[in-house]
């Protein structure tokens, strides 16, 4: 069963088409990283999923529930934290956690104590007197201690110092075994070590959505050497991103790497040539996609 499924999801804000025909599927147990440049539509998509805004068109299925509205009792199993969420600042951290507690039948007091200790949360201090990082920790604690089936985090690492990030990632890793996690982040290095699936959005479109392993296998930096100079400026195949060439050598990012097929394609393009391929980081994939605004690359559903 999918934890999240969207069908032809669209959201328009007057002239701005923030989310376009997004068909996203996230299987249960996946840790899904949603990437994309600023203004790509990640936060809008997450708000749609969390029923904070209504879609202009399309459907959302959350945790198997039909319809796009996750609300009321349905939120007992969903933990959501956003970097720009307004917390009840007048409450102390302790009061805030105590206030949230009765809403969740699965609230885990021992996990609460562990997280409070790990994050070093000052229970008697008001939320408005906390630093940004501490506020985020408090919000995360309140969103994780009831052991949600689905955790949705919108830019949870933004503006946090490395120590706080480590604490947070450690807590998420602990919960990853029993929950589905969707997080949007620019912190690609952190995500890469942690996520099982990745999605890339740009200009409201979901350009890529598949497992990290598939992305790593598919995306390669390919170098071609000792080829004859290219006559004119022939257009490289569409699967080659960031194509650069000089007299006898060229390099590009191959989006559908397969040793034999890619070599054959290179020979077809250059004539006799030696090629070598190296894996690339998620960051490089992100940058290549972001810079070229590559059209939708079909990928497997994140299952």
């Amino acid at each position: 069963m999918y934890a999240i499924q969207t069908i032809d999801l669209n959201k328009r804000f007057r002239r701005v088409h923030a989310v376009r025909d997004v068909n996203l599927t996230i299987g249960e147990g996946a840790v899904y990283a949603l990437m994309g440049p600023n203004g790509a539509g990640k936060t809008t998509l997450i708000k749609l999923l969390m029923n904070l805004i209504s879609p202009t068109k399309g459907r959302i299925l959350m945790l198997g529930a039909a319809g796009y509205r996750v609300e009321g009792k349905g939120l007992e199993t969903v933990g959501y934290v956003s970097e720009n969420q307004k917390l009840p600042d007048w409450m102390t951290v302790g009061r805030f956690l105590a206030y949230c507690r009765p809403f969740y039948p699965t609230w885990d007091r021992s996990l609460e104590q562990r997280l409070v200790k790990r994050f070093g949360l000052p229970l008697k201090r008001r939320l408005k007197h906390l630093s940004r990082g501490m506020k985020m920790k408090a919000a995360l604690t309140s969103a994780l201690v009831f052991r949600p089936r689905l955790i949705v985090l919108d830019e949870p690492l933004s503006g946090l110092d490395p120590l706080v990030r480590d604490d947070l990632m450690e807590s998420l890793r602990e919960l990853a075994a029993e929950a589905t996690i969707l997080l949007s982040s620019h912190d690609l290095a952190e995500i890469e070590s942690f996520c099982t699936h990745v999605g890339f959005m740009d200009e409201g479109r979901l350009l890529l959505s598949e497992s990290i392993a598939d992305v790593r296998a598919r995306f390669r930096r390919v170098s071609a050497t000792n080829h004859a100079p290219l006559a004119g400026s022939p257009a490289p195949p569409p699967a080659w991103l960031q194509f650069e060439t000089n007299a006898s050598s060229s390099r590009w990012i191959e989006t559908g790497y397969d040793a034999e097929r890619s070599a054959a394609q290179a020979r077809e393009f250059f004539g006799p040539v030696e090629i070598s391929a190296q894996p690339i980081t998620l960051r490089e994939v992100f940058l290549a996609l972001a810079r070229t605004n590559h059209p939708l690359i079909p990928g497997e559903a994140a299952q």
Partner: protein
Amino acid sequence: MKIILHILVKDLRRQWIEISLFVLVCIAWVWQTAHPSSWEWFRQRELVPVLLFGMWFLVVIRAVQGECLVGDREFWMTRPYRWPQLMVAKALFLALCLNLPLFIAQLFLLSAAQIPLSWSLLPGLLFLGLEFAFFLTFPAAALAAVTQSVVQWGLALVGMLVYTLMLSWLPWNKLPDGLEGGQNLCASLDMALIAPALAFILLWQYARRRVRPPRLVFAGILLTIPLIILLASSPFIRSIAYPQAKGSPPLRISIAENNGDPTRTYTRSGGFDGAASEISIPVSAAPADSDTIVNVDGLRVTLVADNGWRWQSPWQSRSVRFSKNSPNGSLSFSMPEDQAIQMAKLHVKASVELAFTVYRLGAPHRVDTRADRFQLSGNTYCSWHRQDFSFFNGVETRGLDCEAALHLPVIMQIQMESGSGSCSQPPDQPPIPAGHYAADIEYGTDLPADFDPNPAHKVRLFFGSWIPPIPNPRDPKDNLTAWPCRGVPLEVRTGLFENRVRASFDLGFIGSEEPISPESKYIFDSE
């Protein structure tokens, strides 16, 4: 229920400062209302009621916006709140923090007015609480549900006030007057539109939190205001509010004889510099029986002259009361000056269409007024007080202070007769001979309570002149005013609204061929 109480306790913690301030203002208001004389020194006497309502609105806004229903950044929106629980928690909070202190304050005020507290007052007090919830809390909460902050709420309110001000600049005076019955009907219609609209706004926002439809509904409510005003003066509403009387009307009306003079008179005033003239026709109107009181709410006059000249007034709002004991009055209407001057030169036949409200009085009961304090009727109590009336040339006399708990009856007639009881005039005035009477009529409501935070309504009885009139020996142009004195028996009759009807009456020929200056009297032919 556990969650409801949980949210309620959270709100109490969050808003304890505003709640405390509201309670303090409530106490100040009770003190000010119960001891008006101790506040004489305080120039800004209106400040406390303004603060009371200001705090009321603030508590409502902050309570609703504690879980703000606008925007997508509120933490609670992604928590497992059930919207009906949240709504009930907010309603309970407002009842507890606003209605309960006001209820206790009202008990103090009733007690301070020496009105005996009894269980019979409870339904009225609860109704009053509901009225406050409906007229204050409900609209304030609906507006708070579509705004994000107190400032935004205030700006929206200012916008609505500006809109209302702009509406008031429209030439409403070009329309025929809306009569009381029509206005009441339109007010009911307005309520019937606004109440579900506000309920929709609140329910929608709590259930869906999509702010555009409720904001459109708010705009729709504002747009209906001028339509309702237009409707109030429309013939359609008038005909519904005042249907044509079936059979004989409950009133016979004729032009009053002028002290036995066979000629009839009307007076004309104003009409200078192009302003409208006010024509006043003295009439005698007798209801069918002594239990009926007829209140004319408006009239339309048709004047037709022998030479074919014809003028008809638009419907004009007027208030004249006729009863068996008090059949004399005058029907007044405005008329363009040029038409009034022309009319004065013609033999004119007048007919009038009256829209009136009929009340039926119940059996009379006599009230002994010898005690310092006595029960006038139902929950209305009076006490004697000492007060100087300059009208009586500084001679000390006694007057009545009355207070009605929650509301007065729909209509209440209090009558006293001369020569009875111990009422005496100041020494330099001749005694009032027997055979005269004076009456005061007070209007109230058939609802359990009037919309007033103070449930102890002050009633100042004023009996007017003696009937038949007794000329004032000091000023023959004036008649003696009837003042109650301790011990005078009062006859009190309360009554109910019976119906509103419309009927036409032929007044006969009026007119003069004398071209006289505008301020003088015009003589009319008798039939």
